[in-house]
């Protein structure tokens, strides 16, 4: 069977691949959205932190023999802790200022991180093996699905929906949302907002690192792995609008799918399709799909 001249098996497999990429977009844009939500900062260092997450896993494996599963926990913790330190020492000083300073600071940090890793590990990147448990793949009939990719989707979606649940359905989440709007008053109501902010940043960063570890066995672990990805994720965030957590998750997944389809029907445009969609969405809904104007 063919659809627009493309065998349906190929189409099915592309949709699945799109979903896998969408999972990465979702985790990354979720982290960005959370940080933006509470700190009002666009975390330009998100891509670098994603890269560092992957590197920590790689270093842990090659230098200390720490396996994938431990790294999946450890790396977000370590990078999250780095995030906590950054927030305490630097970002904290910027909250009273125009938001653009946060963007500029994290941009500078991204340059530093990428530069340091580049200096230390060179540019070519390192290989991280697929964990033994997830080796191989299953034949779905229409495609060969590497088990690891399946795991990525499951892990990413679990984390995304878990996060969504915490933020939308728990008291902690209500503090977060309220703190986003008026930290002073939330403080006056007796909630330790500075701590909340610190941990939110740490958590957002940890999400980036988590995505990094997930990515390590798929992509080469290289110092620049995050720097191009992050701009696409920014576009995803613009398309989704910063309005809702669920919005950023769904937009991430959706754009992964659309990108996957573009790669079949018109691969030349697959690099720009996200940006084209962004333009179209902005024309119709300046605040993004889920954003509040």
């Amino acid at each position, binding site marked *: 069977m063919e659809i627009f001249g493309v065998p349906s098996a190929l189409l099915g497999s592309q949709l699945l691949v799109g979903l896998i990429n969408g999972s990465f977009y979702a985790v990354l844009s979720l982290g960005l959205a959370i940080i933006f939500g509470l700190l009002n900062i666009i975390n330009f260092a998100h891509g670098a932190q994603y890269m560092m997450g992957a590197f920590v896993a790689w270093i842990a494996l090659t230098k200390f023999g720490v396996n994938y599963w431990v790294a999946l926990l450890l790396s977000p913790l370590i990078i999250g802790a780095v995030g906590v330190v950054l927030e305490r020492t630097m970002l904290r000083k910027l909250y009273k200022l125009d938001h653009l300073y946060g963007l500029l600071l994290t941009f500078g940090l991204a340059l530093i991180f990428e530069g340091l890793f580049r200096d230390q590990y060179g540019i070519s990147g390192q290989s991280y093996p697929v964990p033994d448990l997830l080796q191989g793949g299953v034949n779905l009939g229409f495609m060969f699905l590497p088990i690891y990719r399946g795991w990525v989707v499951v892990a990413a979606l679990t984390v995304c929906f878990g996060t969504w649940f915490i933020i939308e359905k728990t008291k902690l989440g209500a503090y977060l949302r309220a703190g986003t709007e008026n930290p002073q008053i939330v403080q006056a109501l007796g909630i330790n*907002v500075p701590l909340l902010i610190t941990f939110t940043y740490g958590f957002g960063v940890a999400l980036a690192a988590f995505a990094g570890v997930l990515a390590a066995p798929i992509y080469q672990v290289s110092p620049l792995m995050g720097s191009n990805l992050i701009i696409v994720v920014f576009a995803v965030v613009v398309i989704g609008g910063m309005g809702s957590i669920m919005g950023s998750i769904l937009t991430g997944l959706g754009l992964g799918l659309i990108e996957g389809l573009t790669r079949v029907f018109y691969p030349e445009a697959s690099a720009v399709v996200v940006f084209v969609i962004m333009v179209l969405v902005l024309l119709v809904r300046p605040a993004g799909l889920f954003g509040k104007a």
Partner: protein
Amino acid sequence: MTSAFHPHPEMLRIHDLHAFYGESHILHGIDLQVARGECVTLLGRNGSGRSTTLKSILGLVGRRSGSIMVNGKEAIAEPTHRMARYGVGYVPEERAIFASLSCEENLLLPPQVASGGMSLDEIYRMFPNLLERRHSPGTKLSGGEQQMLAMARVLRTGAKLLLLDEITEGLAPVIVKKLGEIIVELKSRGFTIVLVEQNFRFAAPLADRHYVLEHGEIIATISADELPGRMDWLHQTLGV
């Protein structure tokens, strides 16, 4: 010693309080005391520093110095979120309703800092408007509804020392009247209240004492008994 059984008779004692926003020095040594169950007002012209006094009790100003004793304990060095644990509740001038939370979520948000916080039912009985709009997003409420919500929110926490900044602002007379009744009731329940008000007609019958501020200093203290005799002076200084 103070304890739950022997509460300190003095709920709030402020001594030589100075406050700054960046370079500008706003409060120049405020002194005041409020006993448990009392209601006092801060009067003054626009910009005289009344709101700033409340904010500096909570640590919401740039910098502050002096002494703030709450319930007998020094609190000047405490961060804002700890002040709430001292039993201080604050209704800000600008209401600060959270837009991303519904009316009811706004009410559910504050943690209980002490026993005796009001239940939702009690709140809705007090402010029927809120019951009707309970699922509306916070900022979609009308100005007056937001004002009620801000007041209600603090009553939920169980805070016993209430710092209320212009709570009648933008309210219809019918609600203002209701608020007056509520404050009387709160007093009778042992709440301590510091009121900042422009609406003198509202504040006068409620207060045990009035502090008059000018340029960040207290220029007069007038007790309820003395009030009739000082009305002329108040007229002159405040245009009341």
